[in-house]
């Protein structure tokens, strides 16, 4: 146990100018060591990728950064618009790659829809869907996925996701992240660029990414920053307010879905503080007071943090070898 500090969001306050310089130096040195000419990154219109674009543009010069806008037919309307805005604000070139055709050809939508129909037989063309988890803070109930399907008339059906349907739905929808990454590496190879990964610390630590999808990259410049700190950098870097005020979204399912609903226990600012407390041995009681929750609720969040770390550990592993081999080093 650590002596209880004054637990507040101020614990996560950073010197944005200094952090920007540190990350810029890291990007420049890493790209130089890799003998690459620049970087490519996907722009979702969210704050993480926009901050990464701005950091890369500062470090390397905007003409050495390429942004990719990769909507598909289920992307929200604002994804493309905000992605463009992100590129403009960083002063970088952007290319639109609509990945719907690739996803269609791979069976992304049909495979997922068949899995949903195994749970909700009425699910058909024109319906929309998402998956959600129960709140961690409300009860001890295990976090078991529920699929929610909405008919064109707005009526909703819900069903507990069976193991087989869960695996099918997740593997099918992961075509989206993996196709985007494939496209990023196409442009990276074409330009002799490196690929930037844009997870923040919450996502990286808690395994909120698809292996060989958005989890794949040559460097991840903000993976050490809590989401709250990414917002601080966003403000310092002049990221447009419309991007800074957009709620974090998965933009993966056809019904609107927040990250909190799909994965995390709490809104990002509270989740940040819980993760910081967990990492720094701060008692649940002290965090509870700061967040206006009770100690039992924070203990549940701590258990959920530990559980996700265990469950997603393999996502971080390099391919396992029988014996060490020379890998070429740096």
């Amino acid at each position, binding site marked *: 146990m650590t002596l209880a500090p004054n637990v507040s969001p101020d614990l996560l306050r950073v010197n944005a100018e200094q952090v920007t310089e540190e990350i810029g130096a890291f990007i420049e040195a890493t790209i130089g060591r890799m003998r690459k000419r620049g970087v490519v990154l996907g722009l979702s219109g969210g704050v993480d990728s926009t901050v990464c674009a701005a950091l890369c543009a500062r470090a390397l010069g905007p003409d050495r950064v390429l942004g990719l806008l990769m909507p598909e037919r289920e992307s929200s309307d604002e994804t493309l618009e905000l992605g463009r805005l992100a590129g403009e604000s960083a002063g970088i070139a952007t290319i639109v790659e609509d990945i719907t055709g690739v996803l269609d050809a791979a069976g992304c939508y049909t495979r997922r829809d068949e899995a949903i129909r195994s749970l909700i037989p009425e699910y058909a063309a024109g319906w929309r869907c998402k998956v959600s988890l129960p709140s961690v803070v409300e009860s*001890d109930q295990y976090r*078991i996925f529920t699929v929610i399907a909405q008919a064109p008339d707005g009526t909703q059906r819900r069903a507990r996701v069976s193991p087989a349907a869960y695996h099918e739905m997740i593997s099918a929808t992961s075509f989206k992240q993996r196709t985007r990454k494939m496209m990023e590496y196409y442009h990276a190879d074409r330009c002799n660029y490196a690929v930037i990964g844009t997870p923040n610390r919450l996502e990286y630590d808690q395994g909120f990414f698809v292996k060989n999808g958005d989890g794949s990259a040559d460097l991840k410049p903000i993976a050490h920053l809590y989401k709250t700190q990414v917002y601080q950098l966003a403000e310092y870097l002049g990221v447009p307010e419309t991007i800074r005020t957009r709620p974090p979204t998965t933009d993966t399912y056809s019904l609107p879905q927040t990250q909190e609903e799909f994965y995390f226990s709490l809104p990002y600012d509270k989740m940040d503080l819980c993760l910081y407390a967990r990492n720094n041995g701060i008692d649940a009681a002290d965090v509870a007071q700061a967040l206006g929750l009770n100690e039992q609720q924070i203990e549940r969040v701590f258990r959920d943090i530990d559980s996700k770390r265990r469950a997603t550990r393999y996502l971080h592993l390099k391919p396992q070898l029988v014996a060490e081999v020379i890998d070429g080093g740096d």
Partner: protein
Amino acid sequence: MTTVEQEVRTFLAENFSLGKDISHLSSSQSLTERGFIDSVGIVEVLTFLETRYEIQISDDETVPENIDTIDNIVRFIGVKRGTPEAATQ
């Protein structure tokens, strides 16, 4: 060991331990806290229990007191089937 416990152990071994022996796993040990199963694994356990014992498990019942150890599962199945004494046989 009760029949239910034996069947649950066999299910856990086949699905979460590559079919290898799990006699080292105490019946009072948490299945989730030691990482033996994750939240998807919980659903697999629920599906097995509902199918094998012909019971319905509501979302409200998916709590550690009912599922997190082999002992808890055996007790819970006994209650659901109306034969709580089975857990102590």
